[in-house]
């Protein structure tokens, strides 16, 4: 049914989040050299760091990007395969004027993407991304003469420096003393060479699967419960204290309890916030409109405010800077630790949750049980790109629900009631409308989500 229209549209998204496409179809060498030249032109020369996740297309993309950047007079430093958070930290800590992460994050292996970050290591905001797109569309790129072309540099230590930066924020002694056994699924992604060693250095007993960056993704590289069956089995079989799952480039983290249950990636932010707020980091909590109300419960326990932004990593990062947040993050499992950097960082999230387990000396299932339980239901409706915003607008006009006490239009439509909310928005990365609903009662959340999926489908 609806998948037809998705296939009919070309698999390419050029948005403020970067350029994302399918290799062998839309993500061509020509597109890649053009975008990297546009970025080189936009930053106006200088050092640009690049990194990639483990997708087999990463090399092809990296070569194209390198060529395009050199041609505009940029000095390329290649960090190789490492988490995007390591790239962002390296950009911020160096003289670099920007960075390009070659990763399609949680998308399957056919996809790849360029994510552009600026000199402070944060992704381009919408205005900056718009400027970049204008340069791209104008096609008048900077062209450095032959004697201004810089040789390509390498930096193999960025991943290690990132681990060190995370470690510095943790109570290593407490973790060591706890002697935890941790299972981890790296989805053969960018964290494969880093996380098992990181945990071992913290004194954990590590049981790792899918930690070979040469192998393909064993499942969709998205750490949501449907992709965690292997890890759940591993946690049970190994009698581990917890299991953690990365996405392909190390920004999102999924959790499995010692009972082998996958409570959902919404708990990643709550647990990390419990750790950070509990140890007294000052400032509010920043999250997006689609994230669980459980965040408010955790924040209020420590007397903190919650600031909600539109969905998108850059909104979280910029709001975290602007509000001096203690922690920021998304219900998708991507968490920002301002004391480390303003980047989504699944290794840091893992470290902090392990720290919490050690410090509280309690099973992770109990830590989760303390957080008020809501049911969050995530649905999506395939929608041709040309209909996305108009359909949303029509949907908004048709809404007349008695339970709604507040309507937020910062990013799509969010209807908020006392005990429930539903958020309907256009995906930044795929030709889809996303419907997220949450309520204390499971039936209510499902009904709410289904109702708005039906409404959207009817319009389309």
């Amino acid at each position, binding site marked *: 049914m609806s998948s037809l229209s998705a296939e009919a549209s070309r698999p390419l998204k050029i948005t403020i989040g970067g350029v994302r496409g399918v290799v*062998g179809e839309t993500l061509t060498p020509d597109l890649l050299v053009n975008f990297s030249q546009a970025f080189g032109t936009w930053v106006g020369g200088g050092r640009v760091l690049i990194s990639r996740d483990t997708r087999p297309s990463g090399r092809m993309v990296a070569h194209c990007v390198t*060529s395009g950047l*050199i041609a505009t007079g940029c000095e390329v430093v290649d960090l190789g395969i490492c988490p995007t958070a390591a790239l962002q930290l390296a950009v911020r800590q160096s003289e670099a004027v920007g960075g390009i992460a070659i990763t399609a994050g949680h998308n399957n292996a056919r996809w790849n993407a360029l994510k552009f970050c600026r000199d402070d290591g944060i992704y381009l905001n919408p205005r900056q991304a718009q400027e970049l797109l204008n340069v791209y569309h104008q096609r008048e790129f900077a062209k450095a003469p032959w004697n201004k072309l810089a040789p390509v540099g390498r930096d193999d230590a960025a991943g290690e420096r990132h681990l060190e930066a995370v470690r510095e924020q943790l109570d290593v002694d407490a973790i060591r003393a706890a002697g935890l056994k941790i299972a981890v699924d790296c989805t053969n992604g960018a964290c494969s060479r880093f996380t098992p060693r990181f945990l071992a250095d913290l004194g954990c007993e590590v049981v790792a699967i899918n930690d070979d960056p040469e192998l393909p993704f064993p499942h969709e590289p998205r750490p949501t419960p449907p992709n965690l069956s292997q890890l759940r089995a591993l946690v049970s079989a190994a009698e581990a204290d917890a299991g953690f799952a990365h996405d392909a480039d190390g920004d999102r983290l999924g959790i499995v309890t010692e009972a082998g249950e996958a409570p959902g990636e919404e708990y990643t932010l709550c647990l990390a916030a419990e750790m950070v707020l509990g140890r007294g980091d000052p400032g509010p909590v920043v999250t997006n409109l689609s994230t669980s109300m459980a965040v408010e419960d955790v924040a209020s326990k420590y007397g903190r405010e919650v600031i909600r932004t539109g969905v998108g990593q850059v909104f979280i990062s910029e709001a975290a800077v602007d509000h001096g947040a203690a922690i920021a993050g998304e219900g998708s499992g991507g968490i920002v630790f301002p004391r480390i950097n303003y980047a989504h960082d699944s290794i840091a999230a893992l470290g902090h949750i392990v720290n919490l387990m050690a410090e509280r000396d309690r099973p992770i299932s109990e830590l989760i049980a303390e957080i008020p339980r809501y049911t969050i239901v995530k649905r999506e409706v395939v929608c041709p790109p040309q209909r996305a915003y108009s359909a949303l607008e029509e949907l908004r006009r048709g809404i007349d629900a008695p339970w709604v006490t507040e309507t937020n239009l910062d990013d799509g439509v969010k209807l908020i009631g006392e005990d429930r909310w539903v958020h309907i928005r256009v995906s930044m990365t795929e030709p889809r409308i996303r419907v997220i609903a949450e309520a204390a009662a499971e039936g209510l959340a499902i009904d709410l989500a289904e109702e708005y999926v039906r409404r959207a489908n009817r319009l389309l």
Partner: protein
Amino acid sequence: MAGIQSLKIGVSGVRGVVGQSLTPQLVVGFAEAFGTYLDGGVVVIGRDPRPSGEMILNALVGGLLSTGCSVIDIGVCPTPTMQHAVVDLGADGGIAVTASHHPAAWNALKFCREDGIFLNQHQAEELLNVYHQGAFVQRPHDALGRMGHDEGAINRHLTKVLYSADLDAISSLAPKVVIDSVNGAGADCAEGLLQKMGCEVIAINDVPNGRFPREPEPIAENLGQLCEAVREHGADLGLAQDADGDRLAIVSEEGEAIGEEYTLAFACDVMAETRKGPLVTNLSTSRMIDEVGERHGCEVVRSKVGEVNVVETMLAVDAIGGGEGNGGVIDPNLHYCRDNLAAMALILGGMARRGITITEWKRTFRPSAIVKEKLPCSAGMIGRAILALQRHYEGQTLDLTEGVKAFFDGDAWVHARPSNTEPIIRVVAEADDHATARWLADEAVQVAAQAIEG
């Protein structure tokens, strides 16, 4: 105007000015076209040390991987090393990233096929058609090419040259050689080769960094520093490389740049010493090759100008040696490519066995003067200019294989032909003395110019 003139896409490859016409888009496009043309397989890439080489290499690799071709990067090396590597590694094709003797602002792609020989005119036209059609092969993420590196290509090439060299003769002479590598691709390997052959080596401009201290074309007027160094060190000879190690020029023990035509003459003199069969060179090359042929009783076959034309004629007639008067020597015992390392081995061996100096060797040839001229000529005027030259030389013996070549008394000749790479007519004349050669060249230029002006 400068933008238009700074890009040449033709049968000899793609050449442009970095920062102007030779953009990453153009390079990935040609890489995808070549990958599509080969329909997968392994491609060897070598490059000269121009600073733009890395930008171009990366674009090539990106384009080739996307078409499913795997790449073996052999790094900075002479162009003939790349050609050897294609054969040695059993690859399906190769690309040399080099603008050869052109200034540092230029760079270029030269495409070679699985036998380590450059694409011929028909193959190059096929590649251009693929490029212009723009419908490139795009492989899915799990069928992309792989990337590899090979650090051993230069050593394998050197080993083959050493194996072919008369090491006993050269090392017993132990000549003192000054080598000027113009900071090009041949820098390290030429010095190493000469030392291994038993020469005393003084190297100048021997850092392969692509910062050319002189124009990289090894013609007499660019070799002042080398001539001086030969005199200063009292060397037996000087050797000048171009930027990508295919052409060679010689400076005598007196510090005289004897002209790049002598390189092939000497090398052919050596190859014909012991081998039986024809020699091949192009129509614009000195009659000294004919003298070599007479001396050793071998036929000389002339081809159109261009390395691939010489090579394909060599294959057709089973030649024992060949090359071009611009200093490009082809020793078929090694490979069908212009190779200045092979030329060094041949010439040093021949000199040692003969027990003569460069000047003495030069004097074994009848005195010869060559004058090379060029004349701007738009593409539309070339036919008219060539026809006027044909009419003008009516009554002389003519060779019309490529443009017009006219022969005169005293074995003088003039050859006028349209360039393969630029909108010009090239004129080469040879006679016993400079004045006659100059007069012949000027006459041809004048006739062509009058025809163009109408």
